[in-house]
């Protein structure tokens, strides 16, 4: 039994780092103190294969010295080591070019409701009470390897799983009085099942869950889900290249949203390396696309009250009915771009249901009729400057709303703006365990390459 949250002494140490930085010549400073503990049990084929314990502490300090700026970190938290560290950090910052745009955020914009760390209800008292017996019971209890007999179609080759529980505690303080803390527990179970079919071909299926609360983990059933994902891939074939209606499963649909959010980042926009440069306030996407940052939902994975500068998060629309409402602009970039600052990034973005609430994957496939259901991506990338993308995919062909056969060695290729303008539907079935709440999506006229 162990409680690995930040202690009073450690928090006082962070405060002394700020005092030391000012005493040694910095005009302003921000300290971020991180502490985490994770216990992990890995299993292979229903037996313990690995146990590990990870205990981490580190201090990062951002220094504003004579108009110059540097960022430094260390994981040795002895006072003597820290004093020497800050000396060297200030000396290094002084070597850099002056940049008067570097500054701490306006105190009026910082979070005032996060001093305790547990305001979002993401800390489960069950975590420090976990012991090796309880962990083993979860890790081994979820296994189905020994109870899974070969069938005529397939044989289970391996079941590789990991259970872990963690505590993360973060404190951000600055010399303008900022004091923000975020404390979160996490319970996670994930498994990869590998099978062979009667021809000796291998297929793998992965499934996982993560929850801030032990009671919400539900490790049982995860191996069955992973196994069924592996089995469903037996007998794949490639389709002819062409344009298809495409349904993207909620398990992997964030792959199509992340590049949009990256393109809204101020660092990309300021460098002209974003296909959304100059698009603020414009309708760029289909009117059905609304992305809302639902960052303050209590008890939900990914919620945060402040960003890494301590700026308060707010629930708002990032993209609303296809219109770009926001770039993610921190204090520094606000000066560079001569724009008002916002927050550093999307915290817990949700693609809102369209054209109506309540649709799940099955309902969307039924509406689409025929097409390709993408259940996973295999590599690929997108061009930040143009929005052109090309992704490897795995999934199924479907007809009349029903899966017909698995597909493999296929690619979907196009441009993200065009893709999102061909939006047919956005479901209401995102997985709550994810920090990006992206549901099943459907698009028309997508180029697929295959046979």
């Amino acid at each position: 039994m162990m409680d690995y949250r930040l202690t009073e002494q450690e928090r006082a140490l962070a405060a002394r780092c700020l005092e030391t930085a000012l005493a040694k010549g910095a005009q302003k400073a921000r300290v971020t103190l991180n502490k985490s503990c994770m216990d992990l049990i890995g299993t292979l084929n229903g037996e313990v294969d690995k146990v590990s314990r990870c205990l981490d502490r580190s201090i990062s300090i951002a220094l504003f010295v004579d108009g110059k700026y540097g960022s430094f970190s260390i994981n040795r938290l002895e006072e003597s080591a820290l004093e020497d560290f800050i000396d060297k950090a200030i000396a290094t910052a002084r070597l850099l070019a002056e940049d008067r745009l570097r500054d701490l955020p306006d105190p009026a914009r910082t979070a005032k409701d996060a001093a305790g760390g547990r305001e979002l209800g993401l800390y489960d008292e069950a975590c420090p009470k976990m012991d090796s017996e309880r962990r083993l019971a979860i890790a081994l209890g979820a296994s189905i390897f020994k109870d899974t007999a070969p069938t005529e179609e397939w044989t289970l080759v391996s079941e590789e799983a990991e259970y872990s529980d963690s505590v993360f505690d973060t404190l951000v303080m600055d010399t303008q009085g900022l004091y923000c803390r975020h404390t979160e527990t996490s319970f996670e179970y994930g498994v990869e099942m590998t099978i062979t079919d009667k021809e000796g071909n291998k297929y793998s299926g992965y499934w996982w869950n993560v929850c801030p609360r032990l009671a919400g983990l539900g490790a049982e059933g995860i191996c069955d889900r992973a196994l069924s994902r592996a089995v469903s891939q037996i007998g794949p074939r490639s389709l002819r290249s062409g344009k298809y209606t495409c349904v993207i499963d909620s398990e992997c649909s964030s792959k199509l949203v992340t590049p949009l959010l990256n393109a809204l980042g101020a660092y990309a926009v300021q460098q002209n390396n974003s296909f959304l440069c100059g698009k603020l306030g414009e309708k760029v996407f289909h009117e059905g696309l609304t992305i809302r940052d639902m960052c303050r939902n209590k008890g939900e994975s990914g919620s945060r009250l402040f960003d890494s500068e301590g700026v308060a998060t707010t629930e708002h629309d990032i993209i609303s009915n296809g219109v770009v409402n926001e770039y993610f602009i921190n204090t520094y970039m606000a000066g560079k771009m001569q724009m008002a600052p916002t927050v550093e990034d999307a915290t817990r973005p949700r693609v809102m249901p369209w054209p109506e609430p309540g649709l799940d994957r099955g309902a969307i496939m039924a509406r689409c009729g025929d097409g390709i259901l993408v259940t996973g991506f295999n590599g690929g990338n997108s061009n930040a400057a143009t929005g052109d993308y090309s992704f490897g995919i795995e999934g199924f062909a479907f007809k009349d709303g029903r899966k017909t056969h698995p597909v493999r060695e296929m690619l979907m290729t196009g441009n993200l703006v065009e893709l999102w303008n061909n939006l047919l539907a956005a479901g209401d079935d995102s997985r709550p365990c994810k920090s990006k709440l992206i549901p099943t999506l459907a698009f028309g006229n997508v180029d697929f390459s295959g046979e």
Partner: protein
Amino acid sequence: MIYDRQYYLDTFRVTERDLETLAAEGLKGGGDFCDLFFENTSYRDILLRDGEVSSGGFHIDYGVGIRVLCGEKTGYAYSESTDMPSMKSAARAAAAITVGCAVGGDRRTSDHRHFGRPNPAADRYPMLQDWRTADVAAQLPMLQKLESLIRAKDTRVVKVIAMLSSQVSDILMYNSFGELKYDTRPMGSLVASVVFTQDGAIESKSVSRSFRKGGEMLTDALLKELAAQAVQGIDERFAARRPKGGRMPVVMGAGASGILLHEAMGHAFEADFNRKGQSIFSGKMGERICGKGITIVDDGTIKGNRGAVNFDDEGVPGQYTVMVEDGILTSYLHDRISAKYYGVAPTGNGRRESFRYNPIPRMRATYMESGDGTAEDIIASVKKGIYVDQFANGQVKIGEGDFTFYVKSGFLIEDGRLTMPVKDVNIIGNGPQALADIRAVAGDLAIDDGTWTCGKEQSCPVSCGIPTVLVSNLTVGGE
């Protein structure tokens, strides 16, 4: 760099007696092997943006990872302090793996032992200018010079970001066999990201060089080489189109196309995946998996290379490992656990991101030896296909063998000639089939010295290379 033994003991404030005590503590529960991995890493970066080197910093990471093995099972814990109570606590946490784990003698950890002391004369990365004591002020103008060189070469350049990162890690390893190894590992990386505009269109390009070298790597020649590469091929990139997608022959240009080997074959040759029966190459040892004349290696011995190791992270000497010889699968890539499982010597592939991770089989510099063709003849042999030479990233599904890699630029091949430039396409194939479909290999092997980082569970610096190669049938993304 290899200093004397006392330097490392002093760095971590331990004695050899302490090391023996900790290894014994780890084995108290009945494990059959215990090793200690001490690390003190200093990382520094400086960044040029909008013409000024106005941000930078350094980061210090210090600690010890303690591993206890019981047959193939692993217990792992680490401490960010090297005081004895903290380290003993970590050793006891790692020893938890031994609960209920009874291991017969034939399943014990590989007992291939290497008692020799590290030999500075055989050092693969001597560091003439230690990054830790280098004059940072003198490095700032290097980034400005790099930007000037890039801008001078192309008027379409609108933005340049240049970053110099450097890292030096002092490493001390000890294990319950009594092996003591130590090593100082430098790494310097120079990256330039450039944005171009032409007639309202935007293109970007990122280029890099990374070596296990000290500050001496920063030469005018390196800056000029990087600047030239940064603007090379931009005309083609603005003119590039998406090809028509589908299956076609693919000519992999020499150098960075080695990503094909890394994704399509290298991961599937890592012995942990094979030991667990998950790899598509499980049970194929000794079998022909591609044509005669094809030899694929994983090499930790290239001096100054990003994937070079004097010792891997289990204290096993770095080696040149032939995975495929004349078309026959001859070796997996082993750590100590898999080596014992297969009854072979470890190949020096037990690597890790840092003391926070246990070692697992990882690649180093993976490449194909030269063949006897020429690049010109190979291109001329293709009626309709694609030539690729610059890449962003790749991925593989180990069991199915399906791999992909993302092509930043290349050309269509029509009637044996390079014609329309292409860009931003993913290519997908199946590892064993792609190996079998290699039809020609040129004699122009090149190793790419970019900042390649493998992301198998942990990040690990690697490199790759290949001669010009023709793969007769891969699926290319397109319209």
